[in-house]
């Protein structure tokens, strides 16, 4: 059974219909062609599929697509600045080496975004706590945490 769905995706309105049991990650990747959102475990353990729904980081592999009706969804593709520039957060990952294979990066960056929205000046421990559901097999997390701290400092000095 399909139901109609209207939501905002990366700032643009989307009107579509989905099967009631469709997962958000499949809607994004398979129907809307936004492959920046990754799949690592499909059971809420790795965070590779993290996106923002009304500013909250959620695992899109567990999130029913119909539930985004009327909400704002942000994926990695929607995080850059309008003129093709990287956001401070993305730029910090580039500068501090927060990326190796990069498969965890979209999810990491969106979890970091949710954290910084709530807490613009997080401590090391708060960052590590917030990333607890995002696994990375390559980096050992140190440069990821550095990236987020760098981004926080830059964002704070901007305002």
């Amino acid at each position, binding site marked *: 059974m399909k139901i109609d769905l209207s939501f905002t995706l990366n700032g643009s309105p989307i009107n579509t219909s989905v099967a009631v049991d469709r997962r958000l990650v499949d809607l994004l990747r398979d129907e809307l062609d936004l492959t920046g959102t990754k*799949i690592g475990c499909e059971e809420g353990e790795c965070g590779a599929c993290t996106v923002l729904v009304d500013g909250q980081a959620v695992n899109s592999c567990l999130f029913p697509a119909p539930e985004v009706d009327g909400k704002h969804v942000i994926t990695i*593709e929607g995080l850059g600045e309008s003129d093709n520039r*990287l956001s401070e957060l993305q*730029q910090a990952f580039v*500068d501090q080496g927060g990326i190796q294979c990069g*498969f965890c990066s979209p999810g990491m960056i969106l979890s970091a975004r949710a954290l910084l929205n709530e807490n613009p000046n997080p401590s*090391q421990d708060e960052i590590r*706590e917030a990333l607890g559901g995002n696994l*990375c097999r390559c*980096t050992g997390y140190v440069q990821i945490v550095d990236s987020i701290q760098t981004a926080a400092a830059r964002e704070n000095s901007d305002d």
Partner: protein
Amino acid sequence: MKCTVVGKRVERKDARAKVTGETIYPSDRSREGMLWVVAVRAAHPHARILSIDTERAAAAAGVVRVLTARDVPGENAFGIQFHDMPVLCSDRVRYLGDVVALVGAESRRAARQAAALVAVDYQPLALLTDPEQALDPATPALHPGGNILHEVHFHKGNISVGFQKSAVIVERSYQLPMMDHAFLETEAGLSYFDENDVLCVESCGQYIYRDRKQIASVLGLAEEKIRVSAEMVGGAFGGKDDITVQIQLALMTYVTGRPAKMVASREESIVAHSKRHPASMWFKTGASKSGKLMAVEARFLSDTGAYASLGGPVLNLMAEHAAGPYLVPHVKVDGHVVYTNNGFSGAFRGFGCTQACVGIESQMDLMARALRRDPLAFRQANVLHQGDAAGLGYEMKTAVGAEPTIRAARAGKLYRQRRRIKKDRTHVSPSLAPFIRRGVGVASQMQGLGLGVGIEDQAEVEVVLGPGGAVRVKVGTTEIGQGAYTAYAQMTAERLGVPLEQVEIVGADTGTCPDSGATTASRTTYAVGNAILLAIAKLEQRRSAWAAQGTGRENLSARANFTVPTQDRQLGDGLPHLLYSYGTHVVLVEVNTLTGEISVEAVEAYLDGGRVVSPLGFEGQSEGGIAQGIGYTLFEEVLLDRGRFLNTNFDTYILPSSKDVPTAIHTVPIEVMEKSGPLGAKGISETCTVGVAPAILNALEDAIGIRFVRLPVRAEDVILAREESPHES
């Protein structure tokens, strides 16, 4: 030599596309009209196949084709060293990852549903899950040649004389677990026929040319009719060295003519792909009263599971590295690697050195303790230098950086201040303080670089100078996250004297790139880097020749091939090596004796891989290697019960999270320049993880007085061990 691009903290070439989600990984690929392919895997870890009935599956909604062994046009087998893995099993299965049929359907859901309808009649066979039992000639054989895949027997000097001269002798057995690579992107890819009827496989392998050869022999096609690519991949660590989905995809497209896509689920991934070899090891080592190492004797039993993969070479490297980076006059090493029905094991970052290092570095600590010597001073006094005879007797002919890493570690803060740091309780609450124990441990290691004697180890590249100073470097190795493309670009920019932004790396496509060899064995910076420098030298020769004639040219290209040098004498497949990277790790652990909880609080890594090309990548590799070492020591073990996997996703196969890896990681480059290396470089992608496990084990003994000999060490192991040794405080 002064460098201006090499050695600088530059931005990774692939970073921008990765933070915006633009990078296309194998699992992101799709094509109009593609089929989803799902593998039907064995229902028993060891059974005879009596019949396979695909009729219902083939008739199911959305199903286009169900393939079985009968549909394989060429050789129904593949494998890196021996072609012993069936593409599609027809008469027997030997582990749960074995594939009996492939379903191609219009959707993934339809393919999955139909896969459950393939009816296979099995007659279960006796299971072989105990590696000791595999040594018994009376045990029924899993393969025609018997259950012993390979054995090694080496000796140097006279081991009994060595022990006679020893004042201290230490003997221990060690048990090491099966470990999953847990690359974050599971095995995935896409295949299709292009407009020239070339069969293209866009996939995740670590060696595109070897993949192409294997696909060709399975399909009975000429290699030129096949194109394999694997540019950006979401992690591998050795686990995508064996073919995974490539042949299955190619076969579906070959038979149906349709594009085909496969993405393994995590559960399927953990069951199907290779693992780090589980092993039992026995070590007996001796040292003289004056602290000289006299004897190292080791016995290994490694379990390669159902298929050979690289079980032989991994055992060879265990033997090669059994005596560590030390000068030992008397050495004896014996080992077997056997077949069982326990999944299958193959290449994994560290490749046998990881296992051997747990043994020898635990022994080194135990001996230093018995001799009442400083553990690093003891290592330093016995360390190998260039020109010395290695454990198996051959000469260490190239730069040896072991001693400088130990010296630097001794001078480092963690080691110098270890007595004070161990007593420090200022970070814990006063009520908890009495239950906290801290300890500092060390380990040193070496790791062979390249494939070793007897295995072809070449890298060919092409460097193209285009208009406006643009430079393109075509390489056949995969960017699996290690940052190699950035290092290649830095070396190119350095040598040509152009800005880094002008260099583009064109990677890993047999259609456009030469054969640069495998993305394995810490080899790519060294081998591909050297090939790039050779190609540039050719270009410059031509350029000056033209300049002398007064003619200029805009488009100029040159290919060059570099062969990794080896020792003269071969001791085994890939044995020994001529080049090694080195390292010493110092680790601070903290144990809560109430809960048994262990945390790694700080790590210093002193690594010698020659010149550091990309410091940001160097540190990132080191930190990632430490995280994997922490996982190996404290968390990770693939559990099997009678050949069946018990923990196949991240809720039960536990990886270190951001809360398990310390912030206080300090990586120090010890740059002992390697003359034969590109600008003095070698590589560190494996040595950076190898010593972590024994350093943690040594730190644990320092903290709570208990010697752990079985990995992983979990909280309950700490509690149990403390109950068993109540005199320890």
